[in-house]
């Protein structure tokens, strides 16, 4: 029997479809791992009690000779920001602690149609707001490579669940780096697709014009396979693009000869950790050896990306989170003065939201206020367009842009929690791709002195995710970072 713990999604999917192993066996194996490991990691908010039944259904369909998709029986952990019908969905917030959605996100539906098993829901920074997974109402998540360190965020539970092999892949969401940064911190292949590539329907909104869901996986091929399953136009999301979806996993090529790799000067000028700099240089060298052409590109406006991002994202968030009012679902305060509607709102929201969420609601409310709108939200939207234009120009000179994901590897739990600004600056390399709507990917590239994983970031023009997979595949083979070591916890 195959070693399920270290198998890939495509291997397990194939084995289940060939009936070499049953979906139920696979599911039991990973549920057992969750039972053993998760008390130490804290990656899951809810384990799916119906996972085995869903797996049995996949087996039954196969037994009847029905076609089941490429992810047959593959256990996938879903960030607890995606609605799952009948399965508690919390956004790691007290305000939704008991929310059971009556419907599933399009991404979840597409995964299930492809045969995947939703093994459980993973912890995050509340509503996706954070970079360390410390802002969860259900406690912080530990990095499986070293439990004293954060797994990154906001998709920290997703990253930790896969790094600890409690699932074979996870779906994260990325508003300003929330897939790429935890992927870098936990040694995973994580891709934020082009805005509009993946339906946002049923994904609890943080910042609607920036949010995208994407896979966090153990190989380039797995990331490509999952992306092709979840992508495509969705009638229920007006912002989902009507663009054909390539067979990403079939089209991966190691051919990077002649490919122009853009290196943005402004990114390399930032103060960064020596290990991050070394690993990034090694990645560039590896690509150069394969015949890629290195090009310096200018992105002078990216220095505004973080402030622009925090204006746009908090403004949208302040509006998106207005629906959590304790009226129809979610936490309703028992401490409000009877008959005082305003008090009921402020008590319910005051008790339900954590401090970082409150901070961002206040920032966003301020930025949209009459008299401040022009100077803040409006101005930020204008600069955002300029940043987008700047990337479009840069991509006339290169095919892919390479940069670090973060200025440092994972930091220690508690180290930055009292310095929100330092935490925000952690997003310095990742937010601009969200602002420009571009696809961005974190690829495992090496390790720090302390043995923590470090990724490099790849960016491509809109809907050119295939290029990212090609470069990722080369780095995966030539650097071998994903396979060379395993997290301590396993």
């Amino acid at each position, binding site marked *: 029997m195959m070693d399920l713990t270290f198998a890939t999604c495509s291997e397990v999917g194939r084995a289940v479809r060939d009936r070499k192993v049953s979906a139920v066996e696979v599911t039991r194996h990973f549920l057992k791992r969750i039972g053993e490991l998760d008390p130490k990691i804290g990656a899951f908010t809810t384990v799916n009690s119906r996972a085995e039944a869903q797996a049995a259904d996949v087996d039954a369909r196969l037994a009847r000779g029905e076609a089941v998709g490429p992810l047959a029986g593959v256990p996938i952990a879903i960030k607890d920001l995606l*609605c799952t019908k009948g399965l508690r969905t919390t956004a790691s917030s007290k305000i939704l602690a008991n929310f059971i*959605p*009556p419907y599933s996100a399009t991404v979840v539906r597409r995964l299930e149609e492809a045969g995947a098993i939703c093994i459980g829901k993973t912890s995050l920074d509340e509503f996706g707001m954070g970079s360390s997974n410390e802002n969860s109402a259900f406690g912080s998540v530990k990095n499986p490579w070293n439990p004293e360190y954060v797994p990154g965020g906001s998709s920290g539970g997703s990253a930790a669940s896969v790094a600890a092999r409690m699932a074979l892949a996870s779906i994260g969401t990325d508003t300003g780096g929330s897939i790429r940064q935890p992927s870098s911190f936990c040694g995973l292949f994580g891709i934020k697709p082009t805005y509009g590539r993946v339906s946002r329907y049923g994904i609890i909104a943080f910042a609607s014009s920036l949010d995208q869901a994407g896979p966090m996986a153990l190989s380039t091929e797995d990331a490509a396979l999952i992306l092709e399953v979840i992508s495509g136009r969705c009638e229920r999301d*007006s912002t989902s693009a009507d663009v054909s979806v390539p067979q990403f996993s079939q089209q991966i090529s190691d051919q990077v000869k002649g490919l122009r790799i853009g290196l943005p000067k402004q990114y390399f000028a930032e103060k960064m950790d020596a290990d991050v700099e070394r690993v990034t240089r090694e990645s560039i060298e590896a690509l150069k050896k394969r015949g890629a052409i290195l090009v310096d590109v200018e992105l002078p406006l990216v220095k505004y990306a973080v402030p622009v991002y925090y204006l746009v994202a908090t403004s949208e968030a302040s*509006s998106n989170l*207005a*629906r959590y009012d304790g*009226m129809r*679902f979610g936490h309703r305060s028992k401490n409000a003065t009877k008959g005082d509607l305003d008090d009921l709102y402020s008590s319910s929201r005051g008790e339900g939201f954590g401090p970082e969420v409150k901070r961002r609601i206040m920032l966003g*409310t301020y930025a949209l206020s009459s008299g401040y709108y022009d100077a803040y939200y409006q101005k930020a939207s204008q600069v955002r367009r300029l940043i987008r234009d700047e990337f479009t120009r840069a991509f006339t000179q290169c095919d892919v842009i390479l940069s670090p994901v973060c200025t440092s590897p994972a930091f220690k739990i508690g180290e930055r929690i009292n310095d929100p600004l330092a935490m925000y600056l952690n997003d310095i390399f990742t937010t601009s791709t969200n602002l420009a709507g571009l696809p961005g990917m974190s690829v495992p590239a090496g390790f720090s002195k302390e043995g923590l994983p470090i990724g490099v970031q790849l960016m491509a023009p809109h809907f050119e995710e295939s290029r990212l997979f090609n470069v990722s595949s080369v780095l995966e083979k030539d650097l071998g970072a994903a396979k060379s070591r395993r997290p301590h916890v396993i």
Partner: protein
Amino acid sequence: MSSETRFGAYEPVIGIEIHVQLQTRSKMFCTDSTAFASGDNECVCEVCTGMPGALPTVNRTAIEYAVKTGLALGCSIREKSVFSRKQYFYPDLPKGYQISQFDLPLCENGRVEFVYNGSKKSIEIIRAHVEEDAGKSTHQGDCSLINLNRASVPLLEIVSGPDLRGPEEAAEYARTVHKMVQYLEVCDGNLEEGSFRCDCNVSVRKRGETKLNTRVEIKNINSFRFVEKAIEYEILRQIDAMESGEKIRQETRLYDPDKNRTFAMRSKEEAHDYRYFPDPDLLPLVLTKAEIESMRAKLPEMPLARAARFQSEYKLPEYDSQVLTAEKDLADYFEKVVSASGNAKAASNWVMTELLRELNDSKKTVSQSPIPAERLGQMIALIDKGTISGKIAKTVFAEMWTSGKAPEVIVQEKGLVQITDTSAIEKSIDEVLAANPKELADYRGGKEKLFGFFVGQVMKATKGQASPDMVNQMLKAKLKG
């Protein structure tokens, strides 16, 4: 008394915001039904209840209805308009914001014309924008109930300029718009059920001044009569306040029809900062010139044009044309009567007097009339052919109203055919003259007023069935002796 004289030295300045519920089958941003006959909170889904993660999608039929209305209001249609979020907390507003349009509305710069007091009025339409309705709150003691069936039903908000100068004129403007949306078949026009709601902005200034004074908004008025009365009350209240040197507060008021007064709802100073911003869940709404023009081509004839045509084509007086075009159903009914009878003048008379009276008495709408237009037309044709007299026709009409039978059938069954047989009429006349020698002698002695008496006697003797023309003619000859 006209508003020029009634308010003395003061001039009222009035603008109206009309919320028109567009009668699409599904809601503005989701696919739920808009048919409310079902129970509370039954026409809802994750989108219109504001569930986490749910997203809106635009109902294209609602957009088509809005564009048609905009075109009929003479507006220019924006090829790229934007949905924005209007943010405030209220329990019947599920998302904590209403999707509306703010700085880039679908329709702008229109004009509505109507005739009031014999003169033509032209009122500016500043804008007309698409938005979603909120749910409905019901308060019972210390508990409030929310019904979200109405949440996200499409609305078109039509904003007039401050061009109206009196309560009657304002109500007439609202009636005109009401008529238009029904002609366009984009709204059922049901005021009681809230399909057509008026918010009136009222201020008062000294006659001759041009500046706009502080205005008061009277919200959610659901009848034209109340529009008139609420504005009237509000004008007088503001004049009183100004006379006694009080400052008018900018505020929202409600009209209480039972007490015929307005009362303050909430002060605008404390009102929310709505923090409008473009809804990132919806792309800008783009319409091509060709799409707009194809909607323009589908516009039906509007009331004012139809009234003008009635005057020229059917030679009707202006008043009759206006009455008959007040409702699209009525105008359609009238034209069917014309085509079945071939007699526009008679059709107009029968519809305006007999039919409207009966409908009014029985509180029925034209579409509920027990007499189909074709049958009324056939009845008029029977008069014109001389089969029945105008007098008998009234009997036939009454019978049609109650039994719903065809006029020919009624005439047959009741033996109401007009007597045109000369010898039969002659016989009746002879009998009448023989029975009334004194009157005959008086008539012949010069009392010609008695002619009517003899006509009456003859008609009575023939049970009203004798042709009145023939009776007149023959009686005159016989009386001469």
